[in-house]
């Protein structure tokens, strides 16, 4: 069997049965990256030494007769806004072009402890701001399914790496849809966990009340394995929480609800008892008719499996995107204030006359940040400035409460919410880059979920009809939204689709 098509479980079996070694597996992926990365540009940095040395450690363990964890020897790719010690971490930006991460992100530490092999860092929209990976200072990533099209963003490199089988799984980050949308565009599975489920320590911050790290993989089960490895409270991230300790969101809580018990609960989930909500506001004008058709077909399949489908209303849906813009941009403007080429980074244009500190900041930041980043910083600065704070930022915070109320109300009637991930099919490179607003519309179905902090999965459920020039149709992803900390439920429901 083609080594690069194996799932995590298959790799684990292959390693223990000695069908192949971790080093062999690692080399296979590294060779494939050498062959394909020029064309796809999923990887910004390939960490060959790090990968091979880890693979060798795993092989030594196996030879010595030790039991290895499920993820040991599994090759992965990490989005380049997540720190991996001693490897460059650029956030897709010139301002961090020469930055070498001085420490591991918590999620990376956790994966390393499980024996995961890190192949390299993947391309992204600069500072995770974008929906196509075209905003990377180093060039766009191409969709492996159609090289003239975008892989989505901002975790485009991660999704493309998995789709092109250049990695078994990848880590991405999601602030407004940045895991789900590229997963949908590349036909792979992506999970945005509940806000607080995964530590953000070592993630280059974009919007701190919205950011979450999550897995991207070929199968739902692989996503589940990686999620379980990276989740958990971290004392270095005070917004992270131990899922099992969250009382308010577990209606049927037993005294000793350990994580494994909850997983077992989720596994016994009878599809026949499930009530799935479909928001009527998500199927209005603007959605690509093929996307709508494929999504509705998938929902029908769940209905045939025995689920009860119910139309619900999320009345503040039309305000989610502007709300997101007015919340994420200010948070970004605050988070990006630290980039000043003083503690790290440097001014490239040495010939410029820098009279004082103020000039230094202007030049470093003007030179280092791309257009989209500067646009968002300015939007954020404006929304927070004296005279505008109440009208914009504070108002958006209040609308955020209303959106949250919508979701909480809906989840009193239904167990899960199904929705499209993107209103468009993967678009052509260059198609939307000159119209920022049209680019923002890609996230219309995903931003609400970040605003309210709930978990959501992007599941590849089918392909749109092929275009005139023939070939395969473009992939469509279904969004499965769950209640806080019920990732297992959405993952188990996602698994049902493949098996049917």
């Amino acid at each position: 069997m083609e080594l690069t098509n194996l799932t995590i479980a298959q790799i684990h079996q292959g390693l223990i049965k000695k069908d192949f070694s971790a080093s062999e597996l690692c080399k296979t992926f590294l060779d494939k990256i050498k062959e394909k990365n020029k064309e796809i540009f999923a990887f910004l940095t390939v960490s060959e030494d790090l990968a091979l040395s880890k693979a060798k450690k795993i092989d030594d363990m196996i030879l010595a007769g030790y039991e290895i964890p499920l993820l040991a020897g599994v090759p992965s790719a990490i989005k380049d806004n997540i720190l991996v010690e001693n490897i460059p971490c650029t956030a897709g930006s010139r301002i961090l072009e020469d930055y070498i991460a001085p420490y591991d992100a918590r999620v990376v530490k956790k994966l390393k402890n499980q024996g995961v092999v890190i192949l390299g860092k993947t391309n992204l929209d600069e500072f995770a701001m974008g929906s196509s990976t075209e905003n990377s200072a180093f060039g766009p990533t191409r969709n492996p399914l159609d090289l003239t099209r975008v892989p989505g963003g901002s975790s485009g490199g991660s999704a493309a790496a998995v789709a092109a089988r250049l990695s078994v799984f990848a880590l991405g980050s999601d602030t407004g849809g940045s895991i789900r949308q590229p997963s949908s565009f590349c036909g792979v599975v992506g999970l945005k966990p509940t806000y607080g489920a995964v530590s953000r320590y070592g993630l280059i911050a974009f919007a701190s009340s919205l950011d979450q790290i999550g897995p991207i993989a070929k199968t739902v089960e692989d996503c589940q394995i990686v999620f379980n490895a990276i989740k958990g409270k971290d004392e270095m991230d005070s917004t992270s929480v131990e899922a099992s300790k969250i009382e308010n969101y577990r209606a049927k809580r037993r005294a000793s609800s350990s994580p494994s018990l909850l997983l077992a609960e989720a596994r016994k989930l009878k599809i026949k008892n499930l009530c799935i909500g479909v928001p009527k506001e998500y199927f209005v004008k603007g959605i690509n008719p093929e996307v709508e058709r494929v999504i509705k077909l998938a929902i029908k399949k769940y209905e045939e499996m025995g689920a009860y489908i119910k139309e619900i209303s999320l009345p503040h849906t039309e305000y989610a995107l502007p709300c997101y813009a007015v919340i994420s941009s200010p948070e970004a403007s605050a988070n990006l204030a630290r980039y000043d080429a003083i503690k790290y980074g440097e001014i490239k244009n040495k010939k410029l006359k820098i009279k004082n500190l103020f000039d230094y900041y202007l030049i470093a930041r003007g030179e280092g940040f791309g257009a989209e980043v500067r646009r968002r910083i300015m939007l954020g600065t404006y929304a927070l400035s004296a005279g505008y704070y109440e009208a914009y930022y504070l108002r958006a915070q209040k609308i955020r409460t209303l959106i949250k109320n919508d979701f909480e109300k809906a989840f009193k009637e239904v167990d899960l919410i199904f929705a499209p991930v993107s209103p468009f099919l993967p678009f052509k490179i260059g198609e939307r880059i000159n119209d920022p607003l049209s680019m923002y519309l890609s996230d219309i179905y995903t931003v609400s979920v970040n605003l309210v902090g709930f978990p959501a999965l992007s599941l590849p459920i089918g392909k749109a009809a092929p275009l005139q020039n023939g070939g395969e149709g473009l992939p469509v992803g279904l969004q499965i939204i769950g209640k806080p900390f019920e990732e297992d439920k959405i993952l188990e429901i996602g698994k049902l689709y493949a098996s049917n």
Partner: protein
Amino acid sequence: MITKKELRRIAKLARLSITKDEEERFTKELSSILNYVEKLKEVDVSGVEPTSHPFEVENVMRSDENQKPSFHLWKRGGRRERSSLRPSKRLLELAPETKDGYLKVKSIFEIN
């Protein structure tokens, strides 16, 4: 919706330099984005509390005890890993200009 003068003021506040062409372009783009977010004014938010975080966690603190230098210490079932270089040294290596273990910057106060 936003004038070039306002844009220049915002850029200055955010410590960003923009070229003359960008000034033109950003003014247009930001105006159209601000136009779009005007939509938010339609909503009745009277009596609504703002949400700053999805889940309200309060007072997440550690105990007020002296901690050993813990940069990079990761305890897991007794195993510890520590960076090979002293933390301050590693961080200073990333800075473009240093002197005697300090970061070098342009003077903050101007002498008139």
